[in-house]
């Protein structure tokens, strides 16, 4: 994507017809490695975003593809639908803080006291992306999605390790923690939520998914590999 000349976000911003969106996403982005080794079913069209705006979508796509690159283990993050998982999670009840105690007063507190920001996850994500892009523009004169891999790595490591501080007070590590958790959720949750497409996350580690009965397998597979086609909720619905 970095050498495309025209980056996807700019392209989308300029695109008139929605129809172009699906085409762009599907074409040209699936890396040969993944294609060769994972033989994914026809690369799925991007079903569209429900919460993320163009800027945010570009960030999330770049972030999940960096964290989950295509290699011998799995297709890349966007081919797993992790970006879609994240979008839906932010748009849904969790993103809107349906189980979050949201009454003030708000204090920083001690890390042992847990999450204390006056932000619902969707707001945290939005502010975190904006702050990360602002940092990237200041430091590298480019938004995160435009950075080469080495600099993406630098940024993500800086967020994780607390080396990057955002202007404006948003705690970078809290944003990173939430982001990282959602990447893992998108990789390993049931495909019904949009991620873990084709159960590729489960396949990668050998997790069998929705299995009802193992009583006979305890002996049969004692210290032996249990290789099955994983099952998801929709497979059994």
């Amino acid at each position, binding site marked *: 994507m970095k050498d495309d000349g025209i980056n996807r976000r700019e392209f989308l911003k300029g695109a008139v017809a929605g129809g172009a969106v699906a085409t762009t996403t599907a074409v040209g982005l699936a890396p040969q490695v993944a294609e060769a080794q994972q033989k994914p079913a026809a690369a799925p069209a991007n079903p569209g975003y429900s919460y993320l705006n163009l800027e945010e979508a570009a960030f999330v796509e770049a972030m999940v593809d960096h964290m989950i690159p295509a290699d011998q283990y799995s297709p890349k993050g966007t081919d797993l639908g992790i970006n879609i998982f994240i979008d839906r999670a932010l748009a849904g009840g969790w993103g809107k803080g349906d189980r979050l105690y949201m009454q003030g007063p708000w204090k920083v507190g001690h890390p042992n006291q847990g999450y*204390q920001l006056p932000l619902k996850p969707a707001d945290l994500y939005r502010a975190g992306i904006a702050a990360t892009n602002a940092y990237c523009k200041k430091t590298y004169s480019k938004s995160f999605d435009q950075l080469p891999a080495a600099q993406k790595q630098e940024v993500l490591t800086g967020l994780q390790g607390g080396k990057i501080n955002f202007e404006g007070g948003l705690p970078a590590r809290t944003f990173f923690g939430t982001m990282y958790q959602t990447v893992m959720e998108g990789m390993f949750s049931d495909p019904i939520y949009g991620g873990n497409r084709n159960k590729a996350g489960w396949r990668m580690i050998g997790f069998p998914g929705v299995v009802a009965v193992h*009583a006979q397998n305890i002996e049969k597979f004692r210290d032996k590999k249990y290789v099955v086609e994983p099952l998801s*909720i929709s497979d059994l619905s």
Partner: protein
Amino acid sequence: MATRLKEVDAVIVGLGWTGGIMAAELTKAGMKVVALERGADRGTTDDYTVPNIRDELRYVHRHDLMQNTARDTITVRNNPSQEALPMRRLGSFLPGDGVGGSGVHWSGVTWRWTDQEFNVRTMYEERYGKKFIPEDMTIQDWGISYAELEPYYEKFEYTAAVSGKAGNLKGVIQPGGNPFEAPRARDYALPPLKTIHASQMFNDAAIKQGYHPFPIPCANASQAYTNPDGQKFGACQYCGFCQRFGCEANAKGSPHVAVIPVARRSPNFELRTHAWVTRVMKDPSGKRVTGVQYTNLLNGEEYEQPANMVLLTAYAINNVHLMLLSGIGEPYDPVSQKGVIGKNYCYQTGVNANLFFDGKNFNPFMAAGGSRFAMDDFNTNWDFDRGPHGFVGGFTLSAGFNTSLPIGNRPVPSGTPPWGTGWKAALVKNYQQFMNINSSGSVMANRYNCFDLDPTYKNAFGQPLMRMTFDYKANEQKMGTLAAKLVNDLAKSMNPTSFNPARARESWTVVPYQSTHNTGGTIMGVNPKVSAVNKYLQNWDYHNLFVIGANVFPHNNSYNPTGPVGALAYWTADAIINKYQKNPGALVSA
């Protein structure tokens, strides 16, 4: 104005394990009982079926069956000099919500706590002298004995379909069981669960070190089973989705399988769901409570449910909160050490090591809630001399798998990059090759670990949140250091390819999940100056108020709590039916 309803014999606040047991027993005895449950009515057929129940995101990470902290939570801090802040989402522990309570999504590990807990102060003082117990350690004897509780433990084990292997039958040590357990009259209801590979390896290694491992007792039916009340259980299928999930096979001893249907069959029983109890109502005499007030969450209206007897069964934390909100008893003050409500809140501690074995296949997804072996050599073994280590209490060592699902459990050796191809390579290699060894440790009461009402934050009903002040003290840190060393020694003896060593916990934090084993706050004891309830869990001030749950434990053991919680519920039901009903009044004179 609240609508006043018709009086009943007993009102039960919360329909989980303790509420379910009380509902079944009291209705059997002919009492008219109303249960008020804040959550929805849920059950196996509609809610816990395959495939939808096998959803890690929904049940583990989004807390679908748990208390909603947007409505009610607690505030937390480590010590009184800090400002407490709200636990804005669940983390360290997960109180349940809805019919069955936490009993729906527990694992089922069911222990018998012994006189080593019930007589804790006496036993340590006699053996090590008064000075061995630090001044700020407010442990006290419970006022009950193992011998008194034994038949009620059995009743709970047989009702909840506990599978296990007796280690001590009427004083005779049984091979393969726990030799340090207190004598039991009968073996477990069912034989132990199948042994998974990780537990087997732990077992073999522990025996080599001269320890005494055994399969942990667990309310996962190892075979199809019918309990004494005629409730039917399926056999456990080792599906790997146990804790935090409802059981699709009805193999888990859960209240909605084991006890609640018994009450529901009775014409003496009425269940009202979506009924959030906000306070207990008191008679001006100061001797009796008159019922409870609740909000119907379906329309927001308020009701008064008058009752001859009030049973608080709303889970340990919520029971204490209701007592404080209702102004029953004197709130505990850690400075003057006066008062009782809120006193001796305890939690648990623990350590964990991850072991990686090249070439092994542990299949972590094939396991019951109780697929684990443990050892009590440093726990209920009184021959283990705490003297040189300078701590009170004990810890188990154990290994196995329980609900090891891939969003939450991504084992990689320390030093692995957190993302990218390197991370994937390590996870792919190790997912099947890791097991862990855990230690779960007791927590002794401390004068500064307690509950009171928060001065600032309110719940959705406009009531103050409860404030939890808690941290591990030197006693737990000393114990944790020894536990970590022993876990690591045992791990090394198994020659793993690599391992992430165990480390003692230093300070309590509200994230991540640790255990839903909260105890204390309205403790039982021998006199009203130092306890909130007597040995029958009857409030000292209001004789028709019973407070049932781990909130009555004066300190916390290394064991999971529900064995004695269930036994005490049966013991209390018996006292209500056979003593209190015949002669209402204080069952123990103050």
